[in-house]
């Protein structure tokens, strides 16, 4: 093949013109486009990076909030639990207190009921004992017992305290009524004389007597001197015994 220098030079010139044309009308715009694209890509990358950072920051913030809320929730739950526990304790305490009060009430009521029952039984026992003693004494009493009680009366009349004697005398002097002598069995003449002698020694002379028979005495005597009553008899003694049974 023949190499034509002119063609070769013209080809070179053509190529250079082409290069110039490409560079002028193609290379720069493409370069611009590429540059723009690169810039936009860079911007997008930057924005993505920023968004990533923001997201990371938000994530961090969210985690912080979450942990704080978890903490507050835990604290609130603990507080609620404490309040519930305190309320339960308070209500249980009140319940135990009221139960204890009920128990105490029932204990007291039961004690009083038992005391009442005991009292009733004892009262019944005393009634029976008094009734038995009364029946026995009524059956066993006689003139012999009467005589012994009479002697006891005379002996005790001598030993009356001075204050009592003073009261008897003062009362009789103020209102000199007849002295009434009640006896379960009629008194013999000697006994009457002895009694009158003893009473005269206590109260002075000018005494008047009334003798009466009172079988309710069972055995013994009762002497009324104005506002005072002196007695040694089984009826009074039994009444002293039965006073417990009657109350």
């Amino acid at each position, binding site marked *: 093949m023949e190499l034509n220098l002119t063609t070769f030079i013209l080809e070179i010139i053509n190529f250079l013109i082409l290069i110039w044309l490409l560079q002028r009308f193609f290379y720069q715009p493409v370069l611009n486009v590429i540059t723009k694209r690169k810039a936009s890509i860079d911007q997008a990358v930057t924005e993505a990076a920023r968004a990533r950072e923001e997201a990371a920051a938000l994530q961090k913030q969210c985690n912080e909030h979450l942990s704080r809320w978890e903490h507050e929730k835990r604290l609130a739950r603990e507080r609620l639990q404490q309040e519930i526990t305190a309320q339960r304790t308070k209500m249980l305490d009140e319940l135990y207190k009221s139960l204890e009060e009920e128990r105490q009430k029932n204990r*007291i009521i039961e004690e009083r009921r038992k005391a*009442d029952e005991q009292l009733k039984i*004892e*009262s019944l026992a005393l009634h029976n004992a008094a009734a038995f003693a009364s029946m026995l004494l009524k059956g066993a009493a006689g003139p012999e017992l009467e005589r012994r009680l009479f002697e006891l009366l005379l002996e005790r009349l001598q030993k009356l305290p001075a204050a009592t004697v003073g009261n008897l005398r003062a009362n009789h002097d103020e209102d000199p009524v007849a002295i009434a002598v009640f006896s379960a069995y009629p008194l013999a003449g000697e006994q009457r004389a002895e009694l009158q002698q003893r009473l005269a020694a206590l109260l002075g002379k000018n005494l008047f007597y009334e003798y009466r028979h009172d079988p309710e005495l069972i055995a013994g005597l009762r002497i009324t001197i104005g506002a005072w*009553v002196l007695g040694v008899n089984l009826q009074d003694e039994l009444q002293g015994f039965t006073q417990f049974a*009657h109350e």
Partner: protein
Amino acid sequence: MNNSKRTSAGLLQAQRNWLNAYQLDLRVTERGSVVSVGDGIAWVSGLPSAAIDDILRFEDGSIGMVFDLSRDRVGAILLQETETLTAGNAVQLTGRPLSIGVGDSLQGRVVDPLGRPLDGLPPASRTRQRRLEGHSPRIVARDFVQRPLYTGNKIIDTLIPIGKGQRQLIIGDEGLGRSSLAIDIVINQRGRDVICIYALIGQKRSTVVNTIRLLRDYEALPYTVVVVAEAGSLPGLQYVSPFSACTLAQYWMERGRDTLVIYDDLSAHANTYRELSLLLRRPPGREAYPGDIFYLHSRLLECSTCLNADHGGGSMTALPIVETKQGEIATYIPTNLISITDGQIYLDKDLFAAGFLPAIDIALSVSRIGGKAQHRRIRDEAGRMKLDYLQFLELEVFTRFGARLEASMEAKIRRGRLLREILKQDRLQPMPEKFQLAWLVAFNDGLFDAIEPDDLAAPLALLCKAVGGSVLSLDSERNDWSEAVRDWLHTGERKAHEP
């Protein structure tokens, strides 16, 4: 030997001690002689060691109590008098204080102040003697008044509540319904485990008979003891009758039971005490009453209390009744009792004449315990009701002048009139506490606002019937009550309008 020592030592132990010290000896005792008898008192000569309140036994079987001591005479009030009691009769000191038999067998019985039966039945068995006028409970034995005593009366249970252990005076003129109110309260205690003691002091026999008949007819007698000292009985018996009632109640209170004592009435009691004091020549004071007339009632009413758990937890509620003249409450005996008691229920003659029954004057009536002895639900609902009602009464005065009022005032007056109509109640128809809550809820929710006051009877009756079959209790939630009441009233309306 007093009861407390005997109880702690036991009768047998006490007698054993007596036996250990016993010696057959000359007994020197006192003997008196009746100087004069008349008007329920006896003057006795002798008995130099007689003390006040000693019991005397006369040779004819009469019984008296020493009431006055002078240098050469003993004045005694007669508690039992035979026809043969006359001057010259012998008198002896019994050495025992006045006592009455107490025990569960007395429930349902009618007795006199000495415990003797008046109902024709044999004397109550298994009783023990308890001294009248024992000491009132000590302060350390008492508890707060906290539990409600339901009277069955709408006004009292909502606006003037009474608690167990409280003393509430019923005061008003004769014929206004004081005794009726008291009987209604006793009837309402059926099934509530409250033992009632009704003391009729100086009342006519017809009143006594009517009271007992009513209690029997309404099945209240089985848990009630009626202590009767009629107007024609000895003044001495009328004097001790409230103390007998109090003693009976104290026995049960100390055994953990709730009791209700009604003293009907203490005006007659005060008059009797004045009569006895004047006859026995005690120095008269104001209005010729003796100087210790206040102490007479204060020591009686101080026994009413609520005991704490350490002492059995029982209670004694007292409802003393006192009569006023012409509505005057500022006289001697009523003011005494008002100052002693924990509140009063005042019955007004104008309300009675206007047909407002029971004629309780809400403005002058008060309960010093108040809401503390009220169930919390009823207390919450009743709340301001008393105040609102009193405001309504003041506002209503303006309507009489024909004045035109604001809409809000008209509304208040309308609601006040509704409330006034609701609070009326027939005799012998006590209402349960559930019904009290029901009508309160209905009223506060405005369910009666559309009803005319004259037409309230039917819905109230419907409410009462529905409440009886309801499972709701006082502790149920307010919303549940509200719904239930609404349903009951609407169901009733529907049925009323059905052909």
